[in-house]
């Protein structure tokens, strides 16, 4: 039994490397996915600040909202690792609670992303002409400042950000969209494991199945750590 558990965990396999092939394959996949996201992030950085028309990052990003969604994803990584720890200790009830919590937090993160994408697509330039202070306007808003000249109280015009709007929109939606697709796939994977466990298909001896899903989930988390810093924090900071 102990040997079976060790084998399922991915160690002391009777293979050339002595390691479980499925786990090795998962790490090879994650390594290749690093290059995939590395290329997308590099493309975003290369085209940063090269958009000819707005809106730009400082117009649409809301750091407080994204910080909350980042926190949710970080916490989902904790609940995922606790689900795995509960499984290896044979605590099936705790395992189910933690893995469902992880899936719920994953869905919450996707909800935040859908909200954000919808918000960006419906972005409106809003200038309070009655109390106009041009210095406080963003570069994109300044291009509309002359609309206040006619003595208008406030100026509003829709300028939604979509993948076709500018280089920022294209690279941003491609990068975060692919990440969101990874999260969605992860949620489906976690839910399928949770439902499988209710039918008795998940046992401590077969914890490698959960270990692989956990590795994938944590990878999605570490990719977001980089995206949050490079795209959101650096994106809004002036002069970068």
């Amino acid at each position, binding site marked *: 039994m102990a040997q079976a558990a060790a084998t399922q965990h991915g160690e002391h396999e009777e293979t050339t490397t002595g390691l479980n092939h499925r786990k090795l394959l998962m790490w090879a996949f994650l390594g290749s996915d690093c290059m995939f996201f590395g290329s997308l992030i590099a493309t975003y950085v290369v085209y940063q600040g090269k958009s000819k028309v707005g809106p730009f990052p400082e117009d649409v990003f809301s750091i407080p909202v994204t910080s909350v969604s980042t926190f949710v994803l970080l916490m989902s990584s904790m609940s995922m690792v606790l689900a795995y720890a509960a499984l290896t200790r044979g605590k099936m009830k705790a395992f189910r609670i933690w893995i469902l919590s992880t899936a719920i937090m994953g869905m919450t993160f996707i909800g935040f992303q859908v909200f954000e994408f919808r918000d960006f697509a419906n972005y409106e330039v809003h200038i309070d002409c009655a109390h106009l202070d041009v210095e406080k306007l963003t570069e994109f808003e300044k291009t509309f400042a002359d609309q206040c000249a006619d003595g208008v109280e406030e100026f509003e015009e829709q300028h939604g950000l979509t993948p076709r709007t500018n280089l920022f929109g294209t690279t941003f939606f491609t990068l975060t969209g692919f990440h969101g697709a990874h999260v969605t796939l992860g949620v489906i994977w976690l839910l399928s494991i949770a439902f499988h466990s209710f039918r008795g298909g998940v046992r401590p001896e077969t914890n490698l199945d959960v270990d692989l899903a956990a590795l994938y989930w944590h990878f999605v988390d570490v990719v977001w750590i980089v995206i949050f*810093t490079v795209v959101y924090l650096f994106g809004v*900071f002036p002069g970068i």
Partner: protein
Amino acid sequence: MAEDAHTHDNQPTQESHAEHTGHPTPMTYFKVAMILSIITAIEVAIFYVEDLGHGIIPILVVLSVAKFALVAMFYMHLRYDAKLFTGFFVGGLILALTIGIALLGLFRFFG
């Protein structure tokens, strides 16, 4: 419940296995989560300090790398697993960084 009772039979084996592999306890996972939350809070707080200027870049990079390393080492168990797994992941990371630097260089000097 019956399933739980059945799985408890395996508990000594699983725990001894956990001890053998040196995997961290749930408390360690919780502590790592708290550290990750604190680092994220610091990142956001630093973001609003305008006096830092371009000094914000290395600070955010260091904090981001720290978060990345914590998740990879403790949650992905790279600290406790076989070195070959680390090799596969770090190899991919190095290649990703190389792609990034090459792209930036290309666009800076030939763009």
